[in-house]
């Protein structure tokens, strides 16, 4: 059984840059190459090119790079080309002098530095940079050459909008940062980077707008990121789980997005974006629950339509959590609440159904979840078949066979569709999760049971905080001006301030009195004349 001490030991060993293994480079070229190869375990994807410099002192040299991680064109042109074909290093009288000259004139590359340590050289190598050794020098030149095949910027897959930009983040952190910088051309946009993951050495960058973001939040994000010690980070989900405030809550505590415009908007609001290399999903903190019900569309459409869609989403979230439970409560506890003719036709539709309505609901909900999961993982062409089989065959047949009532099929379908109407998949998931305890409570206590369940959920939510911000802000907030961007989206010219619960103080966002209108325009014209 591994003890804590064992773990300590292993941890030290697995750190490549651990202080115990500070190996320096030697002056011998072939031993340097051997050291690198050995450190990499004689991996087959190391490229080594040995050559002789075109200079007075015919000195041997070698370039080492990783195949696939570095751009071969760049190495050929900027390293091999300039050293082998160009004969500029004529005055060099020693190897050291030659090395300095190469560094000065011989490397037409933006990212060149010296390195004396084998381990560091290997670390550079595995991120895709090239290492240049010169025989007789105990230093190496690291030349920035990383570049690999990657996905182009394409349409976002998980967050579609009707109106709005069509680009999305890719797996490359640098181009992701660039996508944000393209939108926010301000020197106040800060990008701080950190590496995490002992094996993966994943780049993590936090992006925020200095002067608007709450300094406490920025510091807190940095601190939480610094305490991560894990072997691998493959997706931003790892980071999310490692830094969130309440790990056992069913509600997502950190919002993510693959849309650069959404992330930029968040940064502009004073939030902190956390970008992780190798994933297009960017985290944004602090997060409040209501953000999960907002979509980028709301801001691009005119505000009336934006407000309408938000109301629709709130209703659909409520439906997706409560509707099956409410159906049980009404049909098996509070039949007096249903209008008479509806009650009678509900009774008629349940005539001959063998299960109690709780059994019916659970059965249908489970079937629905299975169908959803099946459809999600399948290729698109087969996915359609699943929906036909699921929707038509099972739904129709189950009703005709008298296993479930028609009303129940409507309820379950409505619940399912409502949960699809929520833009954030993780928030919709919380609704799906909470539905089942509510169904059980409703089946025992009816409406009071639902009330008890809902109040536990709401109490839990009011107790949550994400990076110091209450999860239910701005509904439980003290300032009413922040309510302008919640259930309704007030027009841009009326949202004069940054949301105070994020920035931590009241900041002006725009000039007041920008409400447009014919009078405003004509006055301007007359001024000109």
């Amino acid at each position, binding site marked *: 059984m591994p003890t804590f001490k064992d773990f300590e030991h292993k941890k030290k060993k697995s750190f490549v840059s651990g202080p115990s293994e500070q190996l320096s480079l030697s002056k011998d070229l072939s031993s340097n190459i051997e050291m690198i190869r050995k450190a990499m375990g004689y991996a087959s994807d190391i490229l080594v090119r040995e050559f002789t410099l075109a200079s007075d002192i015919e000195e041997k040299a070698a370039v080492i790079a990783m195949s696939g991680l570095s751009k071969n064109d760049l190495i050929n042109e900027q390293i091999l080309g300039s050293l082998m074909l160009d004969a500029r290093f004529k005055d060099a009288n020693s190897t050291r002098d030659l090395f300095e000259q190469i560094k000065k004139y011989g490397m037409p590359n933006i990212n060149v530095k010296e390195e004396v340590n084998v381990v560091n050289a290997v670390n550079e190598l595995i991120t895709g940079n090239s290492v240049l050794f010169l025989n007789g020098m105990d230093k190496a030149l690291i030349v920035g050459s990383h570049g690999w095949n990657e996905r182009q910027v394409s349409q976002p897959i998980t967050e579609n909008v009707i109106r709005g930009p069509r680009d999305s983040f890719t797996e490359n952190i640098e181009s992701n940062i660039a996508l944000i910088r393209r939108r926010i051309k301000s020197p106040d946009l800060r990008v701080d980077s950190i590496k995490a993951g002992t094996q993966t050495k994943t780049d993590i960058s936090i992006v925020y707008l200095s002067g608007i973001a709450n300094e406490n939040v920025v510091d807190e994000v940095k601190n939480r990121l610094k305490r991560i010690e894990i072997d691998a980070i493959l997706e931003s989900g790892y980071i999310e789980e490692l830094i969130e405030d309440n790990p056992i809550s069913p509600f997502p505590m950190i919002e993510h997005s693959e849309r650069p415009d959404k992330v930029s908007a968040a940064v502009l609001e004073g939030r902190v974006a956390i970008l992780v290399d190798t994933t297009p999903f960017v985290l944004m903190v602090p997060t409040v629950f209501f953000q999960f019900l907002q979509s980028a569309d709301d801001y691009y459409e005119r505000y009336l339509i934006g407000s309408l869609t938000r109301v629709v989403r709130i209703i659909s979230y409520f439906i997706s959590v409560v509707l099956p439970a409410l159906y049980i409560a009404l*049909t*098996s*506890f509070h*039949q*007096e609440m249903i209008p*008479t*003719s509806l*009650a*009678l*036709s*509900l*009774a*008629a*539709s*349940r*005539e*001959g*159904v063998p299960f*109690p*309505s*709780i059994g019916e609901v659970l059965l249908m909900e489970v079937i629905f979840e299975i169908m959803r999961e099946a459809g999600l993982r399948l290729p698109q062409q087969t996915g359609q078949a699943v929906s036909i089989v699921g929707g038509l065959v099972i739904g129709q047949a189950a009703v005709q066979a008298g296993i479930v009532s028609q009303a129940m099929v409507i309820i379950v379908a409505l619940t399912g569709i409502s949960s699809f109407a929520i833009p954030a998949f993780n928030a919709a998931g919380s609704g799906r999760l909470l539905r089942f*305890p509510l169904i*059980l409570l409703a*089946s*025992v*206590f*009816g409406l009071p049971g639902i009330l008890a369940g809902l109040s536990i959920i709401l109490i839990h939510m009011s107790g949550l905080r994400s990076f110091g911000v209450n999860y239910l802000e701005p509904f439980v907030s003290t300032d009413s001006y922040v309510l302008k961007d919640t259930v309704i989206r007030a027009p841009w010219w009326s949202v004069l301030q940054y949301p105070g619960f994020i920035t931590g103080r009241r900041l002006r966002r725009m000039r007041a009195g920008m409400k447009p209108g014919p009078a405003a325009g004509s006055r301007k014209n007359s001024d000109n004349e």
Partner: protein
Amino acid sequence: MRKIFLILTLFLLFFQAGCWNAREINELAFVLSVALDKTDNGFKVTAQIAKTETYSKTPTGGASSAVKEKPFWLVSSTGKSIFEAVRNMAAVSSRRIFWSHIKVIIMSEELAKGNLQEIFDFFSRNPELRFRTWVAVTQGEAGKILDVVPIMEKDPSLNIEKIIEKTNLTGKACGIMLKDFLEKYMDHYTNPVASRIVLTTQGDKTVVKLDGAAVFGSKKMAGWLNENETRGYLWVTNKISGSVRVINCPYDGLPVTLEIKKGKTNIKSTITNGIPQFTITAETSAKITEKACLTEFRDPQSLHGLEEVLASAIRKDIESTVTAAQNFDSDFLDFSSVLHRAHKTEWNTLSANWPQLFSKSEVKIHVKARIPEVSLLAKSLVPIEASGEK
């Protein structure tokens, strides 16, 4: 982990303990109306229960089309108390009798003249029942009213409910909800009025008809109101708007039908020598909807004559109601609350012998009638003679 386990156990515990109140909707027998009759030693309760299959879009079982069955089920049982009788229904009904959707309570005259207190105790004590139920009284056996298959509706209760909701169209009947009935009943000085429901035949079909009203005294039913008296009651209680009134034309005696567009009544009280006096002022604006007489009412003078006739007809209606009330010794016109409102201090002394004072009190009636509307026609529908001018 332990927390989750605890919650799970609690859940299962609740689940195991059973769903105390849960009853599936298809295991209920929805009572839509209830009729109460008197038997030798208690009550006979007749419940009209809706058949759910008549509400289903896809009828199950083809056999039912061959034999035309009634779309509802009447179940009746007897007991010493109403609740016992209701519980006795369980002996014949496979489904739980469910009262929340009850629309109308119909009492037989015999019962209404007996013990009211017990009936309304049951209906107001039970949390399943609702206060917006209509209350009606019938002559003869109440259970028979519910046995009439309506022509337009699926079952008799909805039929009766709709009829009661439309009483203001005829102005010859009234409806009262349980909550208002209770209020009047609970008030020591005022008394309730309920709908009177009767069976008549139209062609070869028996139909339910709303006609007149039943007046209650302080403890039991006092008597009936006929159509005119009911109309007067509606006038005094401001419920007349929308009804029609047929009067005879003052010039040639042929009938003119007027629709009462707006009727508003005000009661004022004065006290002279310890005897209260009431002045009822009714204002109305009516509309000619049909006339057989040939008088041209474009002439303001002749229209005024018609208004006079309408006013006197209304006065007569109200007078008849007041007389009936004083005869029955039943203050269903709310005179006592008028007096209470207007003479707060005197009321304390007067209230002790209100019943005697009520029958002694003098009632003056003023009616102001206007006919500002004549429908679409500008003149009478009389063929124009070509040589009329000569």
